[in-house]
């Protein structure tokens, strides 16, 4: 366990110095400002554009902007662009070390493969949590500024935690794929493949409701609006189990890996 702490510190240095943290923070921070703005002004911009084009907007009744859209927009953006950024930034995290031999150097000095994988996961998980908390606070702030109406802060935090769990699932999958496969490109391809499959499974009635992908969409909104879904517990449980399985699997593969 002492080695875990030592290596965790190394991972924190790594995500800071390799700009991993910065890029993720920019993506999430960017959307935390952009999403409320989009939600507030998109209908005005749209009708303005249509007017300018000389189109008849008379029959087109655009709904008035609503503060809930601000949150929807943000979680929607994170579920897409945020996930893409996370995939692109994480596809090399494990593979680079395994391929170059730096991981083996550490193992030779006595680092356990489990601690290695866990430290990589933990550093990024904590970073994601902090960034997400800051980002939703900013969403809250801008939503209040633009709509003067917000959801309770407690609901917001709980819903952000669900989104966080979804991101952790993506992260653990990236680590697992990095241990399993030999090239970054294939890792990325597999991740995007998984993502599409998840979106498809997400559309299946009952099963879709408890898959991790639900944590990026329906579940956060329910929690946000204070609705308690019967699926909430199960979707959390499934995600936690999947993350654990992926991480343990990852450590196992790393341990027996020959590069």
């Amino acid at each position, binding site marked *: 366990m002492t080695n875990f702490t*030592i290596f965790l510190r190394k991972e924190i*240095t790594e995500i800071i*110095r390799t700009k991993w943290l910065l890029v993720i923070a920019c993506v999430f921070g960017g959307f935390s400002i952009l999403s409320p703005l989009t939600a507030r002004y998109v209908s005005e911009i749209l009708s303005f554009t249509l007017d300018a084009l000389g189109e008849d907007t008379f029959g087109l009744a655009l709904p008035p902007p609503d503060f809930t859209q601000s949150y929807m927009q943000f979680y929607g953006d994170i579920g897409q662009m945020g996930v893409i950024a996370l995939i692109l930034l994480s596809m090399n995290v494990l593979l680079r070390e395994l391929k170059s031999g730096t991981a*083996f150097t550490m193992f030779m*000095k*006595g680092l356990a493969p489990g601690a290695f994988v866990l430290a990589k996961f933990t550093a990024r998980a904590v970073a994601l949590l902090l960034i997400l908390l800051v980002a939703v606070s900013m969403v809250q702030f801008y939503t209040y500024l633009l709509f003067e109406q917000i959801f309770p802060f407690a609901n917001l935090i709980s819903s952000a935690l669900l989104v966080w769990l979804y991101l952790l699932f993506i992260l653990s999958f990236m680590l697992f794929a990095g241990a399993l496969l030999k090239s970054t490109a294939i890792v990325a391809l597999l991740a995007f493949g998984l993502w599409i499959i998840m979106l498809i499974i997400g559309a299946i009635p009952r099963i879709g409701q408890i898959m991790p992908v639900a944590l990026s969409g329906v579940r956060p909104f329910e929690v946000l609006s204070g609705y308690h879904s019967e699926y909430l517990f199960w979707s959390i449980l499934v995600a936690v189990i999947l993350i654990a399985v992926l991480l343990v699997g990852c450590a196992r593969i790393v341990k027996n890996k020959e590069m």
Partner: protein
Amino acid sequence: MEIAVETHELSKIYKTTAAVANINLRVPKGAVCGFLGKNGAGKTTTMRMLVGLIKPTSGGFSIMGKNENTTKLVGYLADVPEFYSYMSAVEFLNLCGKISGLTGPELKTRTDELLEKVGLKGVKTRISGYSRGMRQRLGIAQAIINRPDVVFLDEPISALDPVGRRDVTHIINNLETTVMFSTHILSDVENICNYVIIMDKGKVLEQGWTAKIKEKYSRNAAKITFFNPDDKAAFLQTSGKFNIKELSSDPTAVEISSTDEHGENPENTSKFALASLAELALPVKNFSVFESTLDSIFYDLTENGGRDND
């Protein structure tokens, strides 16, 4: 004699190629062992098995008499060493040291001592900006930080310029552990190794103390090069006291060795050859006593030896 590294019919087979084929090698404790072989001989593969990076297809090995959990007993410098390029040398060595279990003042002393040893003390820049020589030296420091019993260095000097080579050779010479390093630069081996292993096509062709091997392959012979073939012919007419070997490559040169009655050794060959040359008053362009070098041994062995089933 205590043995540091020993293998028993160690093999590694990749699909169709036997990278390493049933080798039995032994490196005595304290030896500085040069591991020689041409490209593709199997040096890297052997070392990677010995440090635990890859698993043998068959056979086994022991390090300091142990068959299991040997990874902690060894240090390793890969052929293309990689580090966390966003760190400085101190940071990287500190990380390696901490993971090996060093703490506090002990860690600091060890890191300082190693940086000094490999000439990276006071270098503040990140590893990403290091030259190959600096990387090699940092790699050696990393390999020995936990004071392993055996250090494996894969081509630590091959890619370096003469200055870098001299520096790294000096470091290897002062490692104070059993060292096994692979190379194909024979002059370096000649300078710093007291033990050699010669490998070719997955097999070990020769191994032993450098001095013993040189003795084994030494030949009692001298080579005389004349200015012209006539002088050579004149010499050959009176040369009953020598065994003669004419060299097809050079009509003005001849290889001689003294016969039984004078005692077969290079000193006698030299003495009697020079005496008869003086007697005949023949001018000589070059006279040299054949000395077996690792170079010549290596070429002789790898030209003829190796695997016969491919």
